[in-house]
């Protein structure tokens, strides 16, 4: 097994920007992406704020190069994956063993649900072409083909921890010398399916979410995609630019408590964070910044907060939930937040946790509420905890 897995490129699209530069601007200026629903025709549009990518499908297809009939999930994936690969600027890409590991939870649902309502009313209606790419794996294959990935493509679907799992699976393939370069991350588009589902679980906030606030009422759904280009240090010499950082630790564990809630003591979160630290050989005091899973639900934040209280002690690392900007992007969240974590190290920045006015009384720490510059960021811990008890943590480290 070889030593390092490095991050050579990043790409992201979400409600706060269609690329890295726009996202950084928004994060610095505190401009959140939540608002009224525009692109989904739902009875819930007036009641629930969402964090939509500010482009309709036609506009997305111009950026992605795909037909506008292709699912939004795939469009977003293509845009972010292309940005990441271009950012990595690998000259001898075609000579390398390459892989694409993508995660999503909805697949082509956005097209299918429109087909379905037409079809239910009249079985002769509905464009069958719309459902051809419904299954999760389709999205990954379309993008992989376009990017010229030759050796390996797979799709992971483990809810909100999906893209974090995709990233560390990619790292494993590199460490075991099976691949030299892996584009890994995830994507998800907003759909009526998820909106209605989360609404029925009663964990959506009818206002803009307030992660880690005492009076938080739930999450806001979002959409987007985020990818990192992982490379082996064996090919360091073929990189034209300095890599951003390394992926030094990762861990996955199952909370084994409930299908959609986390255990009150945050057992799964604790195991994931502890495991990632052990894997990286770091101790809790080495962590400069935690990008929280921080969905804004009562359950996640107390569970994650309790686990952090158990693992860390004063002085606590800086921490924040960028879901206060992007909403909860489900299958894409691990990927998007990995990109933000990598950028935190590159630029020495810490993002604010927006709309936090009353700290949680059970916790002895408060997430950052202001954007910070000129920070010494050596190691970033990024948490992604999914339904089904699937808990993952990633650690990125400065080189």
């Amino acid at each position: 097994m070889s030593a390092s897995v490095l991050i050579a490129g990043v790409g992201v699209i979400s409600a706060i920007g269609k690329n890295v530069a726009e996202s950084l601007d928004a994060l610095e200026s505190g401009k959140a992406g939540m608002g009224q629903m525009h692109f989904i025709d739902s009875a819930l549009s007036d009641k629930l704020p969402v964090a939509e990518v500010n482009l309709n499908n036609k506009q997305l297809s111009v950026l992605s190069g795909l037909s506008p009939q292709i699912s939004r999930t795939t469009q977003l994936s293509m845009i972010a994956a292309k940005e990441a690969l271009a950012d990595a600027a690998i000259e001898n890409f075609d000579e390398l063993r390459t892989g694409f590991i993508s995660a999503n939870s909805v697949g082509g649902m956005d097209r299918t649900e429109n087909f379905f309502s037409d079809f239910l009313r009249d079985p002769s209606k509905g464009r069958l072409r719309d459902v051809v790419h419904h299954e999760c794996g389709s999205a990954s294959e379309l993008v992989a083909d376009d990017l010229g990935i030759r050796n390996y493509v797979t799709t992971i679907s483990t809810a909100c921890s999906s893209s974090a799992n995709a990233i560390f699976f990619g790292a494993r393939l590199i460490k075991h010398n099976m691949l030299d370069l892996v584009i890994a991350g995830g994507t998800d588009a907003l759909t009526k399916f998820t909106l209605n589902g989360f609404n029925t679980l009663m964990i959506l906030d009818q206002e803009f979410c307030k992660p880690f606030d005492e009076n938080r009422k739930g999450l806001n759904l979002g959409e987007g995609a985020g990818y990192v280009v992982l490379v082996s240090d064996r090919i360091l010499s073929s990189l034209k630019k300095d890599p951003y950082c390394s992926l030094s630790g990762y861990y996955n564990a199952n909370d084994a408590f409930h299908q959609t809630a986390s255990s009150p003591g945050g057992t799964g979160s604790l195991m994931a964070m502890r495991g990632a630290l052990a894997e990286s050989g770091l101790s809790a005091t080495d962590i400069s910044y935690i990008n929280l899973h921080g969905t804004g639900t009562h359950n996640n934040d107390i569970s994650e907060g309790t686990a952090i209280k158990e693992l860390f002690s004063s002085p606590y690392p800086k921490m924040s939930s960028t879901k206060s900007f992007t909403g909860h992007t489900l299958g894409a969240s691990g990927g998007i937040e990995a990109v933000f974590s990598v950028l935190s190290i590159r630029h020495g920045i810490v993002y604010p946790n927006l709309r936090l006015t009353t700290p949680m009384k059970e916790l002895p720490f408060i997430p950052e509420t202001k954007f910070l510059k000129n920070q010494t960021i050596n190691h970033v811990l990024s948490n992604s905890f999914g339904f089904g008890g699937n808990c993952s943590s990633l650690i990125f480290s400065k080189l």
Partner: protein
Amino acid sequence: MSKQPDRNLSSEKYITANCAIDNGVVYVNGASVFENKTASISEFLDKAYQHFEIGYPKFYKMDNLSKLGVLGTDLLLKNNFNAHNYKPDEIGVVLMNASASLDTDIKYYKTVNDIPSPALFVYTLPNIMIGEICIKNNFKGENAFFVFKSFDGTFMARYVNNLFAENVIQACICGWAELLGENYKVVLYLVEKKQTNQSSLFNEENIKKMYRTNNG
């Protein structure tokens, strides 16, 4: 809780049990242990649950995919596995299928026109099946769910072997668990580092052999 990679890469892994559910028949270690070829999948699952006296009322709330996974795992482990030999975080679960949670997605979506069902929505993710298996058995180790067009024994062997090599797990439940409507197939493998009189080496050849043998 430092886990150093297992440098002894030649330490063998063995399939110490396997379970398959296909075409109305349940097989454990190659032998048929339950059969009902006429029932619908929902009836089949409930009847099998009752027949094996599983005694876990939450079973009835699960969707068909999770029921398949929980039933299959229960039979895989019964009489074949001593959980006390392992700590909860040493047992991993790695599953895959082709349709993800589509069966339940469709059922859930039908309720959206009226009142969306929370109980159905919960199951609109394929890894919830893993969640249910972990909750019932108190497994806390790494778990992963992959979506493939068809069963990829080569991938599974490599992935699971790597987990063992990195000392991430000491035992693994892995396999294929596919269900869509009335079409289903589950083939599960219990992989451990010990040999028993009926175990076989955990390698591609044996994985594929066991996948095929149970094909009705």
